């Protein structure tokens, strides 16, 4: 079963590809996040030593899992941490056996369930949302702490603390490691989907920092959603979320120009959109809309993204349809951001004055205080109405609130009078 020797960088590459999935399996087998992580690290150390000399095992992931499992048993032996757990693990294999007790088949067939269970553990509502995101990225996607910390711009130490606390809570409160029962599943799946969407948004529109986008986080979120769709088939909102992220992500190449400046949806070069991703996404949008009546919040958002995506140019966008979809979304899942988007769509169909009155209502309710896109949208509509002084004041307000550098530069350009003055959508 041994092929040719492999370089250390190849080991590293394999680990990056397989490590996350191996970790999920190990957490399932061992029922302990920390033990699984430590055991996998030890197995990796063995791999780095042996693979270059002895060659690559036929099934690297199975090898990593088996080796890590032995390491975990060793570790439990050494510290006699948990006698019961040791007995459980040790009873399944006999002392001195040369082959690990687990076959590849067992690992592979048990595998999907392991990851699905792990998703529900990581996204348990008893964990803080930011901990859910961090834990998912760490254990389901295999990202290192510093990679995760880069996005929300928290110090690595803070992030590690967050992970430590979350894992401690899972242990102390005994947050279960299983797919919830059918009657709890819809609510719990919602939490999982929300977390995945948080990961995506953190990648697509980072809440802070000098970078406009983090493609790796978008890709991880899409991968997680694909996993949920594959493992829990027929859940319309999971399909819808995947569709929404694919259609949105397809626009990513056009979202920034060569200089790294933010380009509005209306001004994007649509030929730069990723066609294949878009097609996949649009097919899934249809599927999600057919699967559930009335459509859920993700299905509606996916449908809105779909209307934008199908328009050959910004001017051909069916704003009436978009305004109607936002109206439905306001009913299903009311939020001031949704109302803001509807106001923008209304401005496109009924004129800037109609949109502005909706925005002013929103501003009065003060629910979006601190959100830069509200004054940014007001500024655009004011400018289109020829109320330039008020528009400038609103741009200044937005500028003070914007959180990332590309956003700030974009608003500064607007303020200076550059570019056309289409609506500022919150895409």
């Amino acid at each position: 079963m041994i092929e040719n020797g492999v370089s250390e960088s190849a080991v590293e590459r394999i680990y990056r590809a397989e490590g996350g999935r191996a970790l999920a399996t190990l957490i399932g087998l061992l029922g302990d996040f920390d033990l699984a992580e430590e055991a996998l690290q030890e197995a990796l150390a063995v791999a780095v030593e042996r693979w270059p000399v002895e060659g690559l095992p036929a099934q690297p992931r199975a090898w990593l899992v088996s080796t890590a499992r032995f390491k975990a048993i060793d570790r439990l032996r050494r510290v006699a941490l948990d006698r019961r757990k040791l007995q459980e693990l040790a009873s399944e294999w006999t002392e001195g056996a040369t082959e690990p007790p687990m076959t590849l088949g067992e690992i592979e067939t048990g595998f999907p369930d392991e990851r699905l269970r792990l998703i529900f553990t990581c996204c348990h509502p008893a964990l803080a949302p930011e901990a859910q995101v961090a834990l998912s990225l760490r254990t389901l996607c295999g990202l290192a702490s510093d990679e995760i910390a880069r996005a929300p711009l928290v110090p690595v130490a803070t992030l590690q603390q967050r992970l430590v606390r979350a894992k401690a809570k899972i242990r102390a409160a005994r947050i279960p490691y299983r797919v919830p029962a059918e009657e709890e599943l819809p609510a719990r799946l919602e939490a999982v989907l929300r977390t995945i969407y948080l990961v995506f948004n953190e990648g697509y529109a980072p809440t802070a920092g000098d970078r406009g986008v983090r493609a790796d986080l978008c890709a991880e979120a899409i991968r997680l959603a694909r996993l949920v769709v594959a493992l829990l088939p027929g859940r319309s909102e999971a399909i819808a979320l995947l569709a929404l992220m694919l259609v949105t992500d397809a626009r990513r190449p056009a979202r920034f120009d060569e200089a790294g400046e933010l380009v509005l949806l209306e001004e994007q070069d649509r030929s730069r959109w990723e066609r294949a991703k878009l097609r996949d996404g649009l097919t899934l949008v249809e599927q999600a809309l057919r699967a559930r009546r009335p459509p859920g919040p993700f299905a509606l958002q996916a449908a809105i993204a779909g209307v934008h995506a199908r328009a050959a140019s910004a001017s051909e966008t069916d704003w009436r349809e978009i305004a109607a979809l936002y109206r439905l979304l306001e009913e299903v899942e009311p939020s001031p951001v949704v109302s803001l988007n509807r106001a923008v769509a209304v401005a496109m169909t009924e004129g800037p004055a109609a949109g502005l009155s909706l925005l002013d209502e929103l501003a009065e309710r003060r629910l979006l205080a601190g959100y830069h896109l509200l004054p940014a949208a007001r500024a655009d509509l004011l400018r289109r109405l020829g109320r330039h002084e008020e528009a400038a004041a609103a741009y200044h307000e937005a500028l003070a609130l914007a959180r990332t550098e590309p956003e700030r530069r974009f608003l500064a350009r607007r303020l200076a009078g550059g570019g056309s003055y289409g609506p500022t959508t919150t895409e």
Partner: protein
Amino acid sequence: MKYLLMIYDEESRWQQLSEAEREATLGEYFQLSRDLAAAGKLRGGEELEPVSSASTLRVRGGRTLVSDGPFAEAREQLGGFYLVDAVDLDDAIAVAARIPAARTGAVEVRPVVTHEMPAGPE
């Protein structure tokens, strides 16, 4: 595994209930207690007198300092508790969701630390 379910609600809400409403709610508590006992999950549970009856004490420098009122002032007060056996957090949450005050106030779910107490001198 044991969990303490701490029941928080506004005391005034309870006091404003009509006799019939209060009886119906108490009935729900009794039913929950009976179900938990039948399932072998009930370790304890009591309703507490209002916070106006609470005293808080601290021992500092060997002196016992007693003051009137609860440890923490809040809009919602600790009004009772259950101590239950549950398989895991989801199991405990399912029990907590049946507590009537969860619908108006809140229930805090805390896992209990198990200590093996060494045998005493007696």
